[in-house]
């Protein structure tokens, strides 16, 4: 999770080339769009139902079953395609939840941490807690949370969000510390705006930038953690076509030389993770272009400068 910080700021410093830059930046999102498209169109693309036996078990890849069938005769191609659906579902929910939560908590910490009194104490406390939680390995935190809450989709979402919310908290906090010194905040205060309103209207829109750019990375990490937890056997429930679980249940046949039940979902994890990483690396290039566009359409839009 800590690797989310380094190269973003460096890439931001490089201004995008105007000519052709937009097209290249847009093309960089093709891999991500492909993963999402497969997830959305899964019922259309998948040739069979992913959770029922459709043929004899353990068939090798053939024209009828491109990726073969698994130990109970379910079609691996369909399951791999539906696996994208599961991964994207979790990824989107976790990315949205942890970005929203992270921005709110980060703004609160950034605004309250240097004030005295109960609020300041709370802010500093939250900041410390967030630093400590950052030290817990993702998979370990996942194991513990799922263990205590019992295995369910909700527990998994909470577990992964708890792992990944720390990055937006830290990113937003740093941004808020910078924004706090801006003179428009002082003007707002002099104009008689309440500090709560100022936080909502002025501070937050101007400090969400890094957290927003971090969102696809959360998405990618969510796919990784979900697959890891599924792989060690504490992910989603059994027949659900989840990649990590498919890989681990294909392992026993792998040892016996039947490679297809484990390899295809593993390849799916590999490709989707690489696709997401590739596209998220393009975001710093895309961001200024987007900001310029939005500003042109909406000259007074404050949020465009975020």
């Amino acid at each position, binding site marked *: *999770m*800590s*690797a989310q910080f*380094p*190269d973003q700021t460096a890439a931001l410093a490089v201004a995008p080339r105007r000519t052709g830059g937009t097209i290249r930046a847009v093309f960089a999102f093709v891999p991500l769009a492909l993963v999402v498209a497969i997830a959305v169109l899964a019922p259309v693309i998948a040739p069979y139902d992913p959770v029922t036996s459709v043929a004899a078990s353990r068939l090798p890849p053939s024209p009828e079953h491109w990726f073969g069938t698994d130990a109970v005769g379910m079609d691996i191609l369909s399951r791999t395609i539906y696996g994208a659906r599961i991964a994207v579902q979790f990824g989107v929910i976790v990315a949205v939840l942890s970005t929203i939560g992270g921005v709110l908590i980060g703004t609160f910490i950034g605004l309250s941490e240097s004030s005295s009194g109960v609020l300041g104490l709370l802010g500093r406390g939250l900041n*410390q*807690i967030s630093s*400590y*939680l950052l*030290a*817990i*390995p*993702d*998979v*370990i*935190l996942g*194991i*513990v*949370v*799922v*263990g*205590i*809450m*019992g*295995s369910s989709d*909700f*527990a998994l979402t*909470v577990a992964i969000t708890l792992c990944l919310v720390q990055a937006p908290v830290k990113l937003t906090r740093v941004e808020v510390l910078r924004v706090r010194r801006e003179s428009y905040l002082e003007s707002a205060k002099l104009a008689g705006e309440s500090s709560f309103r100022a936080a909502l209207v002025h501070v937050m829109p101007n400090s969400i930038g890094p957290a927003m750019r971090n969102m696809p990375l959360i998405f*990618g990490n969510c796919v*990784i953690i979900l*697959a*890891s937890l599924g*792989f*060690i*056997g*504490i992910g989603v429930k059994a027949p659900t076509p989840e990649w990590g679980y498919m*890989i*681990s249940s294909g*392992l026993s046949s*792998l*040892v016996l*030389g039947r*490679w297809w039940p*484990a*390899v295809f979902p*593993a390849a799916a*994890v*590999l490709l989707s*993770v*690489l696709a*997401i*990483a590739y596209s998220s*690396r393009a975001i710093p290039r895309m961001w200024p272009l987007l900001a310029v566009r939005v500003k042109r359409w909406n000259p007074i839009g404050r949020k465009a400068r975020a």
Partner: protein
Amino acid sequence: MRTTIRDRYRANRWWILRLVRLPVDIFVFATIAFFLIRLLPGDPVAVAVASRNEAVTPETVAAVRAQMGLDGSIWEQLLHFWGGLFRGNLGDSLQTSIPVVTEVFSRLPSTLELILLGLLGAFVACLVLGFVYVRFANPLLRRAVRFYSSFATTVPVFVVAIFLIVLFYVVLAWLPAPLGRAAGTLPVVTGFPILDEIITGSWSMLGETLVAYIMPVAAMVITYTPNLLTQLIGGLDRELEQTTTRFQVAAGAPRRWIFVSLFRRSLPSVIVVFGLFFGSLIGGAVTIESLFGFGGIGQLGVRSVQTVDFPALQGFLIIVVTVCLIAMLVVDLINMALDPRRRPGIEEASR
């Protein structure tokens, strides 16, 4: 002679203060973990009771609650927990009735061994590739190294391992099946399998273990090298431009010394990432252990989830993070030793 002692303290303050901070860190973290796992929605008692095939009566619920140490008010629990923490007692596992601390520490060494081998391998690979990157002007080679480093942190380690298994076990049949370390029971002296086998002289088992380690360690090296390499290449690119390097070249220093100096200046950020990745390596080791059939802390964690073993989960979390905190301590100390500018309070001292 009082001044001498004081001076000596002042010169060594950086590591003394950092060492003193560790127990404080562990205590604070354990307290946070205590509240975190109690604030989570959902009730482990209900989950545990539901997983048993008995009639649910209020008595069984109360009994399970007491077993898990979840009876009484949260402050009573906290006092009890703190008391146990200072005595190094984090409760007994519900499954085996063995103290959690014993259970985790009996499994931790084998996991640590795997992590250390993976890390060392990644570190060496990173140094070699970094050297190749600086030494040879071939643009294709340099671009290849850069491209590899751009895979940082993305691919989960067990996926890489699956492909290794398919290639080297299923297709080529060069390496044995991923079914554990070595046949037979391992004599336990230190808990580190390789060390134990050397001490007790079980050479054939040592051989088997080493062969069984090839694939998992290779998978970890392939996965974690790019993270270190990105940092190293960044550092090398930066340091190559420095006047120090130019002066060394202009002054006709031997090539070897220029390289040593270059690497020494580029390494601190690599070591920082090293420490930060320790956590994700433990996570990676858990999946790798489950894939290759090694018993380790991962096995313990999964077993505790399946049996809703609340004390074991709590102790497991606290001990794993303690290990991470110690790793960060070591990284901090190494970095402060390498680069005195990183020591706290050095600014005031030089003024």
